[in-house]
């Protein structure tokens, strides 16, 4: 006797698979944005499920800012090898030539050049007409109103005031040449769903999510991990070994760690259930300067 009712995680899973298949069937050249984080890991797992026994019928794209944690890059390459993925890595070489980096140019310019611009370069170069992202509506206010098929103009702009209504599970996939959509299969998942699903499905994730003794310095109330020698230390600043983990992963100079001893998935889920802060509180770029997330997204940030 099989259960006649799907659990909420199985419903979310089925919805995501449905979205993956719709995009693959309706667009000429989709791509999956792969950021190496936990949401990307879930996204990748769902993509493999959606098309099984076929391989994933589109490439993965990692926009490498060159400032990701080293462990993220080695994890990425290992996963690509293990799953035999068609992985594209794009770096904004123009930005590299100019030596753009978060320590020298600030987080806003760095993110703009090495992430947002770089992403647009890659999308234009490969002429992708649909790009999957792992954004969730519970992450941040501007993401709550994002559609599952989110329309982008030829210049990759998003117009939050003029979005296509989305009813039932029917998605409008019509775009003109040069226009595209961003597709978000994880829209209706919460952070807790993600962790429970990783646990349930035994999905590999970057070890940085688990607590371990790591060298950190405290800056502006955030614990920044000293991941390589490019990090300039201020006078009197001495890296300390602390048991920390990360709730989200990005560029290491812009990503705050939290002090924690949660070294297993059940421990992480346990900590989450009592946490009162958003996972993105560790993200410097969300707060930096004038840029609200909504503005960044209108300009093409994922």
């Amino acid at each position, binding site marked *: 006797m099989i259960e006649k009712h799907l659990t909420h995680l199985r419903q979310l899973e089925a919805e995501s698979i449905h979205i993956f298949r719709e995009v693959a069937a309706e667009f000429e050249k989709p791509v999956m944005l792969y950021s190496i984080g936990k949401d990307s890991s879930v996204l990748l797992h769902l993509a493999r499920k959606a098309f099984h*026994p076929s391989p994933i019928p589109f490439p993965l794209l990692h926009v490498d800012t060159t400032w990701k944690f080293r462990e993220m890059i080695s994890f990425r390459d290992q996963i690509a090898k293990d799953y035999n993925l068609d992985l594209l890595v794009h770096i904004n070489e123009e930005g590299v030539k100019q030596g753009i980096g978060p320590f020298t140019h600030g987080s806003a310019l760095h993110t703009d050049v090495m992430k947002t611009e770089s992403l647009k370069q890659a999308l234009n170069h490969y002429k992708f007409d649909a790009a999957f992202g792992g954004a969730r509506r519970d992450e941040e206010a501007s993401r709550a109103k994002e559609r599952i098929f989110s329309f982008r103009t030829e210049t990759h702009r998003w117009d939050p005031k003029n979005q296509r*209504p989305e009813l039932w599970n029917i998605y409008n996939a019509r775009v003109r040449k040069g226009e595209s959509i961003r597709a978000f299969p994880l829209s209706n998942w919460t952070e807790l769903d993600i962790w429970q699903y990783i646990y349930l499905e035994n999905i590999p994730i970057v070890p940085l999510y688990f607590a371990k003794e790591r060298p950190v310095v405290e800056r502006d109330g955030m614990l920044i991990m000293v991941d390589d020698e490019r990090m300039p230390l201020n006078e009197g600043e001495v890296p300390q070994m602390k048991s920390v983990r990360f709730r989200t992963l990005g560029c290491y100079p812009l990503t705050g760690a939290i002090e924690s001893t949660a070294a297993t998935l059940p421990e992480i889920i346990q900590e989450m259930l009592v946490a009162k802060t958003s996972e993105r509180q560790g993200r410097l770029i969300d707060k930096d300067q004038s840029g609200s997330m909504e503005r960044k997204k209108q300009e093409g940030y994922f």
Partner: protein
Amino acid sequence: MADTPGHEQYTRNMVTGASTADVAVILIDARKGILTQTMRHSFLVSLLGIKHIVLAVNKMDLVEYEEKTFREIVSAYEKFASQLTFETITAIPLSALEGDNVIAPSTNTPWYEGPSLITQLETVQTTEDLVEKPFRMPVQWVNRPNLDFRGFSGTVSSGSIKVGDGIVEPTSGQSSKVREIVTFDGNLDEAIAGQAVTITLEDEIDISRGDVLCALQDRPATADQFEAKLVWMSDEELLPSRNYILKLGTTTSSARVTALKHKINVNTLEKTAAKTLELNEIGVCNFALDKAISFDPYQENRKTGSFILIDRFSNATVGAGVIDFALRRAENIHWQSVDIHKDARAEQKGQRPAVLWFTGLSGSGKSTIANALEKKLHSIGKHTYLLDGDNVRHGLNKDLGFTDADRVENIRRVGETAKLFVDAGLITLVSFISPFRSERQMARNLMEEGEFLEVFVDTPLEICEQRDIKGLYAKARAGEIKNFTGIDSDYERPENAEIIIDGANTAIEDAADIIIAELKSRGMI
């Protein structure tokens, strides 16, 4: 959870939110009772097929938690709601401010014995009925990793399916049995509504995206016309004559509104006559599609009875529809799948079936050449049929005139008839002016690859007019015939005709021989 705004100008948002909801909480101010917006909200959630209502009678603290007030509101609401389609209405006296009956039962309302709001939301049963409905799975993607595996990927919309069960694709009538239910986590014995799976079949049948795998015994309607309620979502009003893109499940078709019966006032439920629909208006419309599709009435199945309309030019989603029923009672006529196929019929006749579509101006020599060709084919033992434009207009198409719309319909019917003859294994000769490229293309699209040969009898207008065998050009020049091709109606020359006959310089017999040679070189005879 969707919190949708209540004002009339947000009907579009309310409908969008309700489309994916299982339960609606309708909020009522205990001091004010049932308001216009209560009725509007109830009508919209009923229209969108929500069966379970929580009537949240709020601000009970301001009416001294009086049972009588609550009971009066509930009974008035139940009376109003009896014209809607709800299965359960659970009324709860609340004070959001004081927290009465929100999470736990309140001592302020000892006369109330029902559940608290949270308890009700957490326990209401909403999905089980979908599993009990007939099996439907719209095919999203054909899964073909290699030559040995051909699976159909999709999400089960309703019902359940087991290995060995019979299924049918209703628009073609093809049926088979389920061989495997494949998932990444291993094969299943059974799949139920809501699950995303890949199904392989015992037989090789032609199924692609947009088709729906259905239970053999309990099939959906298949029709190219239906009545639906349409919610208009665009600032630009509905144009009933315009062709919109209609997306239902995974099927995309071209559709237009053939009749706008009336619109429905969302506040009073009154029906009023209408010529168009504006933003946030709801109308009852008849739709005609360019092909037959499978669907169920929305109130029976929300997954297979809902669609969106997309504007061809702006690509905006401009409407959302819920189907009431199929028109022309086509719903009970299912495609009969037959065992003797076109190939078998043609093989018996020692030929390959084809359509030879003669196009050219009136007087170009189409019918004369076609006639000579048919005699030659007949004499060498080939099986043929000649469909002549003039002759068909005396019978099958005698209700049609010569406007552009009628010419299109004329060609459509002839194309469909030719298709039946090809299916019967015949070499079918069609002699039709068929002046428009798009309609010749439409006829071509009806046939399989390589079956349609366009024969362009290219005779200059002056020569046709000189010949004027039927005296028609003279009448057209005199203005006695309107819309005459070549005179006051265009002839669009074929761009890629398979066979071109120089009608001014080729003898009839030679023209027929040229075509016979072409048929031989293509292995058709």
